[in-house]
């Protein structure tokens, strides 16, 4: 059983639309992450989130991306205006601290058409 649940498993959206990907970490770990994998490419770090704020973000994580944990449980990634190149598998992860392993969800496959 994955220790991180992601919804939806697959989302198709039109270019320019906003999407929200959701993640429910099944524990009280404090560090949360989003990664993505474009088909045929490496899994890439997007952002890390600690204590209700972004602790680090990559160059990919530009102004069209945002993260929040609105209710202390769900951890969301919002893409404001999707582009074709945002099509990828998006993985949520959690960890207890910075020197322990990360636990990943099953991913959300985002397809932008």
């Amino acid at each position, binding site marked *: 059983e*994955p220790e*991180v649940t992601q919804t939806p498993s697959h989302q198709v959206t039109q270019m320019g639309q906003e999407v929200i990907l959701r993640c429910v970490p099944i524990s009280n770990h404090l*560090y949360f*992450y989003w*990664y993505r994998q474009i088909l045929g*490419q*490496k*899994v*890439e*770090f997007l952002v*890390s989130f600690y204590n209700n704020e972004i*602790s*680090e973000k*990559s160059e990919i994580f530009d102004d069209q991306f945002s993260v929040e944990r609105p209710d202390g449980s769900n951890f969301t990634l919002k893409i404001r205006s999707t582009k074709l190149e945002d099509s990828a598998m998006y*993985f949520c*992860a959690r*960890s207890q*601290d*910075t*020197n322990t*392993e*990360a*636990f*990943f*969800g*099953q*991913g959300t496959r985002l397809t932008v058409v």
Partner: protein
Amino acid sequence: AQSVSQHNHHVILSEAASLELGCNYSYGGTVNLFWYVQYPGQHLQLLLKYFSGDPLVKGIKGFEAEFIKSKFSFNLRKPSVQWSDTAEYFCAVNGRGNNRLAFGKGNQVVVIP
């Protein structure tokens, strides 16, 4: 920034054959090293990890990996594979105290019964 290289993206072998997957990283400081496995349709699961101590680490399902600092390598091995080892294998690294994981491109391993 750290980077990870994995070669031989597609590996096909027969049951009972030995498997070795190479992983090389570049990073200027102390690292934590990981191998993750993704079975078809499932989430990324931790196979094994190295933080410090014995450079030969044993993971689940008979896998092991050896950290060779002088070669910046963390190769994964299994003496005798099974059909159920068919999966994609990812090497990942983060700098000590930095929770941002850098992944290799992955090795797609197919074990033929």
